């Protein structure tokens, strides 16, 4: 009676809300005593765990803050949140928004990394009252718009990089 067992296990999962896609956005302050090498290690590990747990998302970070949007099954996202709250590599975590969604926004990435650059420095000003970037002073809409805008800029940059490479290729190059 394989099929009965299967539906029973699905029913139990439904009881825990595993059929619901939840998107959670949070901000936190980065512990400055972390070495750069450790950040790379954290990110690599997060990427692996997320892939295994069906979590997708985007992460913005600079030397002071993390802004992250994660999406996945409700109990999985909440399990991750409980771990994040206890993670000593950052502090003052604040949940900005958490809601049920019909579809994933970041489905292409187990984690999309967005690093603000010199060129898009002005974005901080676009979504803030002050010139200094501080997500703790930003509203929900400002934070989600900043993440989306950074993501779009990165896509455009990637596209134009490809075009530049293609343009640079001399006409006689058949490789």
């Amino acid at each position, binding site marked *: 009676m394989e099929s009965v067992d299967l539906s029973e296990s699905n029913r139990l999962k439904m009881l825990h*809300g595993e059929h619901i896609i*939840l998107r*959670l956005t949070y901000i936190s302050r980065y512990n400055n005593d972390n070495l750069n090498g450790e950040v790379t290690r954290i990110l690599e590990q997060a990427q692996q765990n997320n892939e295994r747990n069906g979590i997708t998302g985007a992460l913005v970070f600079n030397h002071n803050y993390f802004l992250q949007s994660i999406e996945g099954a*409700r*109990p999985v996202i*909440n399990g991750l*949140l*409980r771990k994040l*709250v206890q993670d000593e590599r950052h502090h003052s*975590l*604040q*949940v*900005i*928004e*958490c*809601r*049920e969604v019909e579809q994933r926004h970041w489905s292409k990435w187990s984690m999309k990394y967005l690093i603000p650059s010199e060129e898009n420095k002005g974005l901080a000003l676009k979504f803030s009252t002050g010139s200094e970037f501080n997500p*703790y*002073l930003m*509203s*929900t*809409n400002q934070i989600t718009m900043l993440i989306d805008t950074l993501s779009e800029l990165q896509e455009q940059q990637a596209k134009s990089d490809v075009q530049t490479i293609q343009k640079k290729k001399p006409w006689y190059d058949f490789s």
Partner: protein
Amino acid sequence: MNSVTTEAHILVSMTYASRANPNVSAKDFNEILQQAQINNAANGITGMLTFNKDYFLQTIEGPRAQINRLLYSLISDERHHDLQIIETRELKHR
């Protein structure tokens, strides 16, 4: 820098569900309610709490920083487990 006053302009509502630990008694429930009333009034938090012997379901609303501080203590509260945020959103008013 006074982070409380600078962040106090953003009002959020947070709804969560959790499972009561089996050893929680009726006396504990009363304590939870009374403690919540006192703490929340002091922190500008309003909301509602409903529960039976198995589950808690609570909505809290207040300044974003305070709501998140409360979330921290809720997560580590040993009278319940498996806390799951159902929704968090910014409010125009309570």
